[in-house]
């Protein structure tokens, strides 16, 4: 039941909060992590990550809520809390949640003509589910934002208008 709530929440966040299913996909090669996010150009977006190249019962997943606190032409800065979980653990009576983290990240749009292509870097203090031990994670990856270029500009314009006021 608990897993169902989580999965529902993930879907709810990804496809409801942002109105339409505009997604970005990310790959973090050093840790073999695949990510799928709602529109990363919005003020608030949701990030879902899954460890790949791993055994079925060891596929750790993460969900986090991000807030873009600075959105610029070529770079966004964001922060957000999240938690790591493993659905398989529930089937063997282990704690579903692995731990919690806060991610500080940046997404750089290195090619002016293709702002959908982004490089991302995240710094993420992580603490286990008993809140008694943790470590600092770093992640470097690349991402593609599946929204039209015009929408990327619209989001930026909106942000600039708000700032101008």
């Amino acid at each position, binding site marked *: 039941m*608990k897993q169902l*709530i*989580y999965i529902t*929440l993930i879907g*709810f*966040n990804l496809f*409801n*909060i*942002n*109105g339409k299913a505009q997604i970005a996909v990310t790959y973090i090669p050093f*840790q073999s992590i695949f990510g799928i996010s709602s529109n990363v150009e919005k*003020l*608030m977006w949701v990030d879902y990550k899954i*460890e790949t*190249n*791993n*055994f*079925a*019962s*060891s596929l*750790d997943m993460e969900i986090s*809520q991000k807030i873009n606190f600075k959105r610029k032409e070529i770079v966004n800065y964001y922060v957000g809390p999240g*938690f*790591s979980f493993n659905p*398989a*653990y529930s089937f*063997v*009576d*282990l*704690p*579903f*949640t*692995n*731990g919690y983290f806060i991610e500080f990240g940046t997404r750089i749009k290195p090619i002016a003509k293709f702002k959908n292509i982004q490089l991302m870097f995240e710094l993420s203090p*992580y603490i*286990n*589910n*008993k809140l*008694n*031990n943790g*470590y600092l994670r770093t992640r470097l990856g690349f991402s593609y934002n599946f929204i039209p270029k015009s929408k990327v500009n619209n989001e930026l314009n909106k942000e600039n208008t708000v700032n101008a006021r």
Partner: protein
Amino acid sequence: MCRKSFCNLLINYSVCFLTLNSGCIKKVNDAKYECNMNAAYFSHPNYFIGVAVDPFLLNSNVPYNKIVVEQFNNITAENTFKAEYLHPIKDTFYFDNADMLANFCASNNKRLHGHTLIWHKQLPEWIYNYKGSNNDWETLFKKHIQTIVSHFKGKVLSWDVVNEAFDENGELRESIWLKHIGSNYIEKAFKYAAEADKDVLLFYNDFNLESNPKKHNSVISYFNLLRKRGVKIDGIGVQMHININYPDISQIKSCLNEIVKSDYKIHLSELDISINANGKNNIPTQEILNEQADFLKKILLHYKQIPNANQFGITFWGVNDANSWIRSFYNRIDYPLLFDDNYQAKPAYCALKE
């Protein structure tokens, strides 16, 4: 839009918080792990569950002996195969206790893992004080390895050829062997062992591989290079002296995955899960023991998915808590093993049996 998003977020995280807390409440359930010790002999052909033993206790202590005979199918000598015991005097080897253990394994149908040929600790005094040329050291080194491996040919399935040769920064540790044999002493040790017994499995064994990516990456790269040069290296022993809070299971998984990628056999070679690393759990509560069992279960869950060819087995570093090296080495009370001071099964044992 923003207000709507914020409200949704608030609802979502409230539900998350409640569900997470319900998980915590479930964890302290006292009856989470229950089992008996009957018919628990781990005889599955693909799963080897081992234990480090003391031959003296094996002969003198009935419950100790009973547990070793009934519960484990892989044996490592905790100390008996180390240089200070096998090679106490120059040109004199003492095999009696080790032979006794080898005979015990043969008569009880157990695998025997040899630990360890080359280590910088627990050497006899004469080696520490040895004065000789580089050639003399080389002769000593080769003779030590080949005499022992040849003696146990056909009795020992596998050897930890070199133990703990890397520092935490991923570089070779400054040791008596590095100083006198040179930086290629590891390669030589594996070659000499393979010459003495071409069928025996050869392992490198070290601690903190599971928690230190720099160290395990260095070790894997180093042995990949040796393999390319034709040196026989069958597996890596990940000692796994861990505690219930450290390292995180994700770090352990990452280490094991890297070793599997390079196609080495993995021996979780000295597993114990301390519950009192910070000295606050002098009396183990049921909750803490369940946490220990949960952690072991997570490790097993991952380990058993490793391809069979890469699984060598899991060895617990001691039979019961009273005999764990941790109590004497760190001078603290701890409960890191499967059986308690009275040889009764703990939740960790039940998790393993599941």
